[in-house]
């Protein structure tokens, strides 16, 4: 080889051919020297290999980091967080333990709608292998895998409101039932952790899990849930030295527990037979979190067109693209069919009619809520009543009373200018349903075009006439629900008809138990625009769809308008308006009234919403939103103090940001 090179150097006039030869030989030599390596190298490298290499590289690095993370001492993440945000404030549990608070009263949690887990005990073929696995709550993995099977198992029987044949879905029991709704999305977990800090544990905490799809009385009929709660409360009082329990219901759990308190004192067979002293003996305080005492407007839109924004969190699991008919999935119709078999959704229809929620031309809220104001969270109690005055000039009077109106002009016109076709007349009109060929059953297909048109022609519905509307468009659901729930105001509470269980969950048709030492708290968030009334339109789509939908094109005039996307918003916690959460504690039950004959003291604790300051805070420690409020440190502190023995007065009595007392004055409720 060296010889060849020399030749090449000396004899430069040789043809290129030669040079090629040289190189060729050169190459040959090389080949002999390291033939293996060369060919091996060049063999492997291609696009596919690069991909593999890349994936392998990423995986390895990922695993390596994971390993590092896992071997890292547990204190580092906390250290990093502290370095970024500054020292963390102690969670209330730690803080109060330092103050010397310890376990005192046993605590009972009553979860709300949709937050409780449900598991399968018996199912059809398609649900094989899911025995005792969660259908609701947890990962929702099955929802994606076999959606139709899932919807079938989650539905109840449309006639009875109980189990369909061959399917048994039951609530998960224990604290695990509702500590997390989905992985990482806490409901009760933060509260439980903080209570544990001052010494609470399984024997002093009880999650009153129930099947939230059923009507309240049916949970007793099918599962004996109310009896179990009674027995457990009695047990906890007995084993904790006669200390009364502190009950903490959330959302619909508030109504459920109201029902329970009536049930437990009513004689059997309808009631639990605890006697008229039961509540006084066993309950120290009922601390209602975000309680929809008088219902939620969202439930109306939910029932009417499945458009409630999160009364069923199911919506969040069916993101926008599922709406498209292109996929032929008809998610909404399936959802509507499923949710309409749930009696419990009927329990939250606004109660008290026009007296509470306002008529065609007035509403208790008037114009006092500044929907655009994000600054509200910084307000102190003193200046809340100044703000409406400032903004009053550029705000029109919002007709919250018209819970559903068809078209924007109708929503804003004065009542005398609206022409309405009487609903009852059209109900008498022919009932000929046009039998469509839709696979999916919803009652809209039974009622026919006439009725749909008639419903739209009525133009405006208040909280009173909304019931007629729902009876009109979904007679079966309302007939079933009507046997379990009632929405009126009692004229005479001593009327024996009010002993029926269907009145027990309506605070306007029941008396509170005779327990003057008990305390009732209404704790809820304020400062978030909350759905209060809707502008609807009739859809032009095909037969097999829901004929009504919220007219999202309707916007208010100014930036601050309460009308956005077809929804009038009022003050509240994103789900429950202040009016519903606070009115009973502010007026209906305050002092000795006919609803509260023994004068149980009531306290309003409002928590002004402040969004989380940064990402590390997660869902916020000062949130006022309906579910996130369960992680609000101020609320947790209040609960812990009461559980450790404090009274409402010691907490500081009422704590009000909103205009609830002003609104309460406007409501003409006979007490």
């Amino acid at each position, binding site marked *: 080889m060296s010889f060849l090179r020399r030749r090449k150097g000396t004899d430069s006039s040789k043809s*290129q*051919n030669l*040079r*090629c030869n040289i*190189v*060729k030989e050169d*190459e040959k030599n090389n*080949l002999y020297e390291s033939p293996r390596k*060369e*060919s091996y*190298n*060049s*063999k*492997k*490298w*291609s696009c*596919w290999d690069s*991909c*593999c*290499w*890349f*994936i*392998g*590289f990423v*995986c*390895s690095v990922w695993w390596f980091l994971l390993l590092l993370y896992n071997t890292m001492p*547990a*204190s580092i993440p906390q250290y990093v967080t502290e370095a970024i945000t500054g020292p963390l404030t102690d969670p209330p549990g730690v803080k109060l333990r330092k103050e010397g608070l310890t376990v005192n009263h046993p605590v009972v949690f009553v979860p709300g709608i949709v937050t409780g887990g449900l598991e399968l*005990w*018996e199912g059809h*073929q*398609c649900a*094989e*292998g899911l*025995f*005792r696995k969660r259908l609701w709550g947890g990962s929702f993995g099955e929802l994606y*895998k*076999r959606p139709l099977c899932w919807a079938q198992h989650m539905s109840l029987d449309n006639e009875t409101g109980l189990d369909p044949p061959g399917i048994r879905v*039951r*609530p998960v*029991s*224990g604290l*695990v039932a509702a500590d997390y709704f989905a992985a990482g999305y806490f409901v009760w977990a933060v509260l*439980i*952790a903080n209570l*544990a*800090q001052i*010494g609470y*544990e*399984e*024997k002093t905490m009880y999650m009153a899990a129930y099947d939230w799809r059923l009507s309240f009385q049916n949970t007793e009929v099918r*599962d*004996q849930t109310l*009896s*179990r709660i009674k*027995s457990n409360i*009695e*047990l906890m009082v*007995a*084993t904790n030295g006669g200390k009364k329990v502190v009950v903490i219901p959330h959302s619909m759990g508030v109504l459920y527990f109201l029902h329970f308190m009536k049930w437990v004192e009513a004689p059997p067979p309808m009631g639990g037979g605890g006697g008229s002293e039961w509540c006084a003996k066993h309950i120290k305080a009922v601390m209602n979190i975000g309680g929809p005492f008088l219902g939620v407007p969202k439930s109306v839109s939910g029932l009417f067109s499945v458009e409630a924004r999160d009364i069923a969190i199911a919506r969040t699991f069916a993101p926008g693209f599922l709406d498209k008919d292109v996929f032929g999935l008809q998610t909404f119709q399936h959802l509507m069919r499923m949710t309409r078999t749930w009696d419990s959704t009927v329990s939250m229809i606004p109660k008290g009619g026009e007296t509470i929620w306002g008529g065609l031309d007035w509403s208790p809220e008037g114009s006092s809520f500044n929907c655009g104001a994000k600054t509200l969270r910084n307000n102190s109690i003193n200046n809340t009543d100044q703000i409406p005055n400032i903004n009053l000039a550029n705000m029109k009077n919002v007709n919250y009373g018209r819970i559903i109106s068809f078209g924007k002009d109708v929503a804003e016109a004065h009542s005398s200018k609206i022409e309405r076709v009487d609903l009852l007349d059209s109900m008498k009109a022919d009932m000929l349903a046009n039998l469509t060929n839709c696979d999916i059953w919803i009652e809209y297909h039974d009622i026919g075009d006439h009725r749909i048109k008639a419903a739209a022609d009525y133009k405006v519905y208040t909280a009173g006439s909304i019931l007629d509307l729902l009876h009109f468009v979904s007679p079966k659901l309302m007939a079933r629900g009507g046997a379990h729930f009632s929405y009126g105001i009692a004229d005479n509470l001593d009327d024996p008809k009010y002993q029926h269980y269907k009145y027990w969950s309506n605070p306007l048709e029941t008396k509170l138990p005779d327990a003057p030492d008990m305390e009732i708290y209404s704790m809820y968030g304020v400062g978030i625009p909350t759905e209060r009334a809707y502008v609807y339109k009739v859809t032009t789509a095909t037969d097999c769809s829901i004929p009504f939908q919220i007219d999202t094109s309707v916007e208010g005039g100014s930036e601050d308008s309460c009308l956005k996307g077809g929804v009038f918003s009022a003050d509240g916690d994103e789900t429950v308006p202040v009016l519903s959460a606070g009115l009973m504690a502010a007026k209906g039950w305050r002092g000795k009234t006919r609803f509260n004959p023994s004068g149980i003291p009531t306290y309003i604790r409002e928590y002004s919403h402040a969004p989380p300051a940064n990402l590390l805070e997660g869902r916020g420690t000062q949130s006022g939103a309906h579910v996130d409020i369960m992680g609000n440190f101020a609320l947790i502190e209040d609960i812990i103090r009461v559980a450790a023995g404090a009274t409402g007065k010691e907490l500081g009595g009422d704590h009000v940001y909103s205009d609830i007392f002003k609104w309460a004055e406007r409501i003409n409720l006979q007490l």
Partner: protein
Amino acid sequence: MASVLRFRKLCYVESAVKCTSVGYESFEIDEKLDEKEEDVLSANNFALEINKKRKQPKRQPKEWRCLDSCCWIIGYLCTTWWLLLFCYHCLPVTLLRVPELPGPGVRLKREGLTALHPVVLVPGIVTGGLELWEGRPCADGLFRKRLWGGGSFTQIFKRPLCLLEHLSLHYETGLDPQGIRVRAVPGLVGADYFAPGYFVWAVLIENLAKIGYEGKNLHMAAYDWRLSFQNTEIRDHALTRLKSKIELMYISNGYKKVVAVPHSMGVIYFLHFLKWVETPPPMGGGGGPGWCAKHIKAVMNIGPAFLGVPKAVSNLFSAEGKDVSYIRAMAPGVFDSEILGLQTFERVMRMARTWDSIVSLLPKGGEVIWGNMDRSPEEGHVCDFSKKSHSKTSLTTNNVNNSDVKRGFLVKDLANYGRIISFGKPASVLHSSKLPTADSKEFSRTSTSENFNNFSCGEAWTEYDEMSRQSIQNVAADKAYTTTTLLDLLRFVAPKMMRRAEAHFSHGIAENLDDPKYNHYKYWSNPLETKLSDAPDMEIYCMYGVGIQTERSYVYKLSPNSRCKSIPYQIDNSVHGEDGSCLKGGVYFADGDESVPVLSAGFMCAKGWRGRTRFNPSGIATYIREYRHKPPTSLMEGRGIESGSHVDIMGNFALIEDIMRVAAGATGDEIGGDQIHSDIIKMSERINLGL
């Protein structure tokens, strides 16, 4: 494969005509002349392009290094795995289901059985889950996470010392240590699976659900199995909760009595409960004398450890119980080696000795039940299980006679089961007259003088560290111990533990059951020192597996290792009997379900409670249901549907069927009365117990 071949081809061509990359112009002309090599040319051009392309990434090192290969392989595997996983998930669910054997639930449902009596499940030792409620800083982030059972034992591997610390109880009180609260997981999840895929109650629950059981008529009485039974009430009100739950289920299910299904240690826990509930407060639950008769239809004991388990002895003595605590399974061989300095056994022993409940499993009834130096009720037991499994129940007596004769010729070492611990093989075989007698007073003499001499080890880990070398050797010099002298032995080597635990448990036989001292709770879990409650309509079942070798007594030796913080005794693994002998690896085996010997599981049902006896004054009916062990025939069967071993029996279809029939209303006679495979009746006859 095809693509790989093509690469080879390309590469070959490429290297052969590499010259083109240098001086391609003229070469091209030359080549063009050659018509035959036209194909090669196109290949050349192709190769050329590749070459050009390859020049661009020349920046990165061109050699295919080992690391790259690794990355490539990992990437390849990952991608394939993901692809397969994706395909797997795309498959319809029904395709994937392994065709499961239809359990008895499906069949009985077709027969028309439905849920009738509410069912209470009482889990045994170690199978119940424990979760953390308050802990030290090292257990950060584990709040309400399982420390024991249920899901992952990953935490044990991650922070073993921290876990051991949290699972231990206070050595003096037997309750929580300062600042640590570990509690039982409530509900069915508490003990349905011990580890992922390792069922305990899950199969039974699933079958019960088939005939209509659900949360309202199925209850898991979870309790903290580390505590002594009365302490579960004192700390957690576990007994009160159980009482309230049973009363609630009785009422809310239309006044149907409850069927209780305890397992393993749960059996004596439930025995304790039955006494507790009828005893007036403050010591008892105040249910009144008719409570059991009113609320309980049947107690179906699975693998009952009525008279204790010999395994508990070895566990307490040297932490060598083979699986009374599953810890051994979790700490495989590696941990034994001292190289790592982990001293797993010592730590485990330290933890286990804080658990009162293990003391509840020490053999009860002393020499009367378990045999003395020279005799034992199991005498004549043949350990050749493979042969014996063919014998039929009706021929049992004949067979035993035959084998007795045979054994006389063939097997020379008699199994002296009565000597539950002996030091050295000779001590286990020789006749008692040739052995030095064990005298418990001897212990106290040595202990008082020398107990505290040897404190060079610093922090005392186990109570062995507080003993002097001399007294350790004295213990071994005494050669053999029966169940009676064993208690003295344990009192000597672990005085604090025994003092703590013996306030809660007793291991004797009552002379006179009407003696008022037997009203104390420490006697309630010992069937030989309590009367059953007055409930003539109740039924008691003893359901257990037979046909598996079960530890019955041990041959020990002094551990050669004399350093600090080690356990001075260990089972002498080198001792073996001849073929067919019951002695293997230092352990004498008898018939049983791998954990509980037949004697302990069956004796009370076979004799102690049969008919009207002083232990069973109201004549509660007892039934023995034995299930012969058959190992799973194929892998698909998992842990077997005819298994008889202590935990796997919970998946035994015959047993599940029996339970379901009783829960659906059948009586013991209707399911077939006694069903006996073992020699339990004969053994019982040999036991001289005043009834």
